[in-house]
């Protein structure tokens, strides 16, 4: 298990990093007007006047008891904040991944089958443009067009219940999904071409199988392996990319919380979120490996 030392190192790194940040929580929370005594008192209340090793020791000790501390600015337990917001970001990320895959797979297959034709060029061109534009720009354009102009989708927010989430998060998920799809299409197209020219596809055709059977059983199944691996690698980026999407679409997720915490010098929140990210990303890698080994019998789990 290499995971635990990695986590500890991550925590120590973050612990030191956040304390390197210029400005302290008191500065961030109290604003410009606070007097010197108030700043001092606040720091004392937060235990920030103690030596760093002591602070880290206390942090680890509390961590082992499942306590991530209280947010300095929001004054609620970090664990509760994460419990409230992580599902939102996860929902968004998974939603985006689903949209991205739904978008990328058919188009990548189409581009691969029609490779080097105008269809291929069009698909690749459109996604290339999508990939060259900043996320917030794409987000705002989608929002303006599909949200405000056409009124098909609500502008921002998270919605209530599963269908509410699906409806409200469609545009942000699409924004992220488009970005992901652009990455996927590039790789997937090549991997489909590779599969299409593989000997076993020739063999399948020589067997006289129908085109649809060849496509689904032989081509897609193999192309999916590449997709899953790629998705796993990109999920971290997806969560990171949510920082901006969450701001634009007013979604109360952990991405935005993290940025606010960094700006607000909310040490406990930064530390808690880092740990969460590390756990989530590791889990995603694990799940990717599991799925991969499911899809690809050649892979043995290590």
């Amino acid at each position, binding site marked *: 298990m290499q995971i635990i030392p990695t986590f500890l190192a991550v925590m120590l790194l973050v612990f030191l990093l956040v304390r390197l940040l210029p400005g302290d929580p008191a500065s961030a929370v109290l604003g410009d007007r606070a007097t010197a005594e108030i700043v001092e008192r606040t720091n004392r209340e937060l235990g920030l006047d103690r030596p760093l090793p002591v602070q880290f020791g206390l942090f680890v000790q509390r961590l082992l008891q499942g306590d991530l501390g209280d947010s300095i600015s929001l004054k609620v337990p970090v664990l509760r904040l994460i419990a409230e917001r992580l599902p939102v970001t996860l929902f968004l990320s998974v939603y985006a991944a689903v949209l991205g895959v739904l978008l990328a797979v058919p188009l990548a297959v189409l581009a691969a089958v029609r490779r080097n034709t105008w269809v291929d060029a069009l698909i690749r061109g459109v996604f290339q443009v999508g990939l060259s534009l900043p996320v917030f720009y794409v987000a705002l354009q989608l929002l303006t067009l599909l949200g405000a102009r056409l009124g098909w989708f609500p502008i921002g927010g998270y919605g209530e219940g599963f269908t509410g989430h699906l409806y409200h998060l469609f545009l942000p998920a699409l924004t992220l999904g488009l970005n992901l799809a652009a990455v996927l299409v590039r790789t997937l197209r090549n991997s489909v071409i590779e599969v299409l020219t593989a000997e076993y596809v020739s063999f399948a055709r020589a067997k006289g199988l129908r085109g649809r059977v060849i496509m689904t059983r032989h081509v897609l199944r193999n192309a999916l392996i590449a997709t899953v691996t790629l998705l796993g690698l990109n999920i971290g980026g997806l969560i990171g990319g949510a920082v901006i999407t969450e*701001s634009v679409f007013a979604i109360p997720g952990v991405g935005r919380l993290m940025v606010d915490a960094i700006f607000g010098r909310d040490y406990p929140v930064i530390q808690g979120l880092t740990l969460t990210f590390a756990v989530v990303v590791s889990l995603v890698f694990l799940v990717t490996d599991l799925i991969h080994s499911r899809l690809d019998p050649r892979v043995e789990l290590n």
Partner: protein
Amino acid sequence: ATRGGQLVYGRYADSLFLDPVLNDANLDIWILTNLYDTLLQPTADGKGVQPGLASRYVASSDGKTLTLTLRPGLKFADGSALTGADVKWSLDRARKPDAGAWSSSLASIDTVTVSGNTVTLKLKRPDPTLPAALATFNAGIMPQKLFTAAPGKNDAEKAKAFAEKPIGSGPFVLSEWKRGSYMVLKRNPYYWKKGDDGKALPYLDSVRFEIIPDDNTRILKLQAGELQGAEFIPLSRVAELKRNAALDMELFPSTKVNSILMNNRPTLKNGTDNPLSDVRVRQALNYATNKDALIQVVTYGTGKPMTSYMSSTTPLFDSSQKGFPYDLAKAKSLLAASKYKGGFEVSVLATSGSADDLALLTALQQMWGAIGVRLKIEQVDAATKTARYRANDFQMRTAAWTNDINDPSQITSYYALFDNIESVHTGFKSAEIDKLFAQSQQELSRITRASQYRRIQSVYAAAAPIIYLYETPYPVALSKKVNGFVQIPLGNNIFASTWLTK
């Protein structure tokens, strides 16, 4: 006015901590009086006070006693009675010297005694600011029983617990709060104030705050009808929204003053000489600042030039102040008279990500370039900026101020008094202002006080410890259906008599 309905209002950020005494941020302050009513209330124009929970207040002739009469039958939002004991407990909590950042506003109170409906405040000294202080959020009245029943070992822990589900005496009561997402305030059925229909306020069944950090999204949501109101409209879009027939683009007068704070000390934190310690240099920069141009470029014509360090909406603002009209020749001659005739480089701390700061400073770069001053913009995030500022480690920084209390004493104590926070860390110090201020804090005559303040403003202007820029309003866009909403100059959002056209 029609009753009922829900107002959905877009805020740019969520509240943090709904305790009237222990909170720190405008995000809380500006909505707190909807939850916790105060004994007195600021008037809508921000210049005076009016009765609140107390229907009457009388000062003794020596100014050392203030007697307030509570309205009969007051209730908290849970239906329990609001008694004198609650008032005493709340004021005592708020004025404890180590309680929060605001306790000093009630520092003149010596004792609070209650008998029946009468609350008597015995003062250590006459205090002309006390009525305004009692109309300020930190003097909000809380239910002593509920608060002390909240879980927690000490006041701080109880406050955290209570603030999660606060019960107050204001027109609304918190009913739902998903942090960072939305907050719903429900009508408090026990609120004392009556509407024009003779029934108890508020008209609205509820107010729902949606948290939408991105300006554009907030506006889009308003335009799409998903919101009926949105705060912090970027000034660049005011004109556009004014043209929108479905919206009222309101520019509520505010106490907001935008300035650049200068470090007036002879040497900087890093030991180098500071050109800004020369009053002529400071004046020169002030004269070289074309406020009208800035108002056009930065505030899109919505602001107005600052002529005093305090806003024109602040009580005792001296309208005869001239400020620093744009005068390049004068600026040049002032600079020529100083050690820095050839110009110099000066760096300014700006808040990263603030479009307004950027607009302002890039414009100033150009303007000051005309007198040979090279402005270097140093963008840092807010926390860093505050930390450097607090350590006096800056040359210039952008700053804005709004009053929390309906009195000039607050801004004066910060901007002009060294003893508080070194005159907003400029290092400015004037014995005359110190003396005048001390006198004014006990001066019961409004006229005398006004003349004291006129002098303070003049002395301050002559020393020019800051760059005078402009005052800006609170830009709030509302659906045409929304009536009776006001954001008072202090910033408080007043939803008590807001109603929606059906």
